């Protein structure tokens, strides 16, 4: 969550954003390792490459603002303020996990940080986010709700139903589309007609497209959208152009049939959100490599400790299998 108010300067804030992005990157690297070593049950959809979107968006939010997340949701969860150790524990199906091991990678929720949950139905949380915004408006709480989804989810009809209602009722909801170009294993040129933001504009919803690899740009744009939503000026739509470094999920290794290695290399080399921010901060002489390396080292230590905690944590007691079905 935003440390903006707790820190004394802009540079400290952007170093924190760097740390958050680095944490997500490192977390996902470890998830990939766990999966490859067959230590992790199920599967995982890695967020690597898209860090600037989650961090830029969540840094514009308050702790009690809501987010809804997706199957590719580890980044959202960490960026909104969840702890690394309990996230790993959830991914490994352990009792100490955020959902006591009952949700796993695709259903992580942390209401304490405003995360209403990842969703394994593509586009499945669009109604929930819009309803959270309606609830905030009815309660007069001043909260906003953010709905994360990918370019693949733009093909779901639910989006158009809820954008219609959000526009009609001026709800404080921001639809954040992470356009990483791929709907699972298919390029968007095969799945999407027309422009993405034109869809929102058709409902009279304020919509913008930004470079989703630039965390500063994402946050600044998002801050404007959040402020207008809080002022009661209604919903907004933010398309972030981004890229996922890995496949659709951890097992999607051989993917040259749908995208080239050259394309992947280009994004990693020339559009990496961590590199981009580091270069900017160094060029502006706001920091130096040693400071950033120290952040990376500290993050690596934290993530390693979190992973070890989860590996050593106990599984749930079998008696829990039929608990929490009903309140």
């Amino acid at each position: 969550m935003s440390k903006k108010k707790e820190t004394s300067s802009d540079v400290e804030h952007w170093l924190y954003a760097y740390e958050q992005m680095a944490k997500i990157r490192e977390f996902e690297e470890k998830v990939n390792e766990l999966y490859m070593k067959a230590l992790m049950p199920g599967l995982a959809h890695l967020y690597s490459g898209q860090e600037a979107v989650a961090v830029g968006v969540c840094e514009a939010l308050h702790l009690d603002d809501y987010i809804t997340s997706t199957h590719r949701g580890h980044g959202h969860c960490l960026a909104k303020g969840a702890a690394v150790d309990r996230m790993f524990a959830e991914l490994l199906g352990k009792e100490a996990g955020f959902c006591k091991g009952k949700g796993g990678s695709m259903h992580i929720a942390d209401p304490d940080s405003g995360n209403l949950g990842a969703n394994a139905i593509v586009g499945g949380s669009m109604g929930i986010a819009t309803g959270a915004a309606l609830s905030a408006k009815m309660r007069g709480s001043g909260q906003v709700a953010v709905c994360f989804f990918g370019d693949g989810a733009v093909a779901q009809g639910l989006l158009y139903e809820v954008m219609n209602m959000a526009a009609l009722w001026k709800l404080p909801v921001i639809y954040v589309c992470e356009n990483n170009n791929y709907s699972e294993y298919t390029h968007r040129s095969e799945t999407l007609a027309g422009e993405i933001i034109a869809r929102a504009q058709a409902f009279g919803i304020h919509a913008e497209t930004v470079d989703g690899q630039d965390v500063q740009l994402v946050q600044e744009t998002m801050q404007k959208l959040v402020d207008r939503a809080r002022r009661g000026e209604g919903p907004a739509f933010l398309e972030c152009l981004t890229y996922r470094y890995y496949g659709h999920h951890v097992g999607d290794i051989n993917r040259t049939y749908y995208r080239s290695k050259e394309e992947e290399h280009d994004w990693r080399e020339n559009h990496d959100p961590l590199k981009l921010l580091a270069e900017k901060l160094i060029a502006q002489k706001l920091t130096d490599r040693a400071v950033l390396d120290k952040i990376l080292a500290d993050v690596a230590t934290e993530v390693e400790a979190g992973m070890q905690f989860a590996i050593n944590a106990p599984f749930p007691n079998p008696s829990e299998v039929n608990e929490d079905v009903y309140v």
Partner: protein
Amino acid sequence: MSEREITFSEAIREALAEELRRDPRVFIIGEDVAEAGTPFKVLSGLVDEFGKERIIDSPISEPGFTGVGVGAAMTGMRPVVDIMFGDFLTLSMDQIVNQAAKVHYMSGGKLKAPIVFRTTMGATRRSAAQHSQSLQAWVSHVPGLKVVMPSTPYDAKGLLKTAIRDENPVVFIEDKLMYKMKGIVPAEEYLIPFGVADVKRKGDDITLVATSSMVQVALGAAEKLKEIGISAEVIDPRTTWPLDKQAMIDSAKKTSRVIVIDEGYEQYGVTAELASVIADGAFYYLDAPVKRMGAMNVPIPFSPVLEDLTVPTEETVFQMAKSLCQRS
């Protein structure tokens, strides 16, 4: 207790009005719920007292407004979502089944969705295949949901108030043909707990377990059976989940013969689950196999001549009971 006779739809409206007055978190959302008061006029007048902020007319977007309801429920509100025809549950199924029903479990008990999905059921309104189904089996199948099927104005009011106060998602299914039916309803507040069956008529020779619209059919059949000397007991589970298994088993043990009647399709229907529970729990007491009567396994036809053949009637239940009791 002072008693009055009111209609089923008045009982529903009273329950909603009382809960809207009691709890500011309660609101209604759905198609034509405000000034129109729904096509069935069940909600007429509520918007006058509670305003359009709490009686929210939505676009014709079942998945959309159902999902919006779920999100509001997860963040501190108590929505009552109006799904005009039970057939439209199919449109909202992802939001009900994958979202509302599972969010408590998936989050390890941290999130909850206290929400009521009010919808309708029932054939013989000449509304054909997409406005006549009784899909209670679909929702009764899903862990995390509770399913209520009232059969009288009294039950409707007490159960709906309980549904709104429940912390879980509840599907509340009303028989469209019952809206004008009158019954005794106390003026004082009361609640009816879930999972408690009601004996609608006491009897000794055969048990008729019936839900919603089929309760009146069973009571009519019981009256006819009495004329030929068969004493039928009519049990109404009132909620298909939680299910009062013991009440059905106890009655079956007493009478040794059972017919289960529900207006959903017979194939894989509510009757199958109830019959299984009874056969399992009263096996050594039964003198005949537990029989099931549901809607015929066809899409519901338009022509009145055909439609009337598809649902159990007093006469078909009477004939089935008579043959089970080996009377010719």
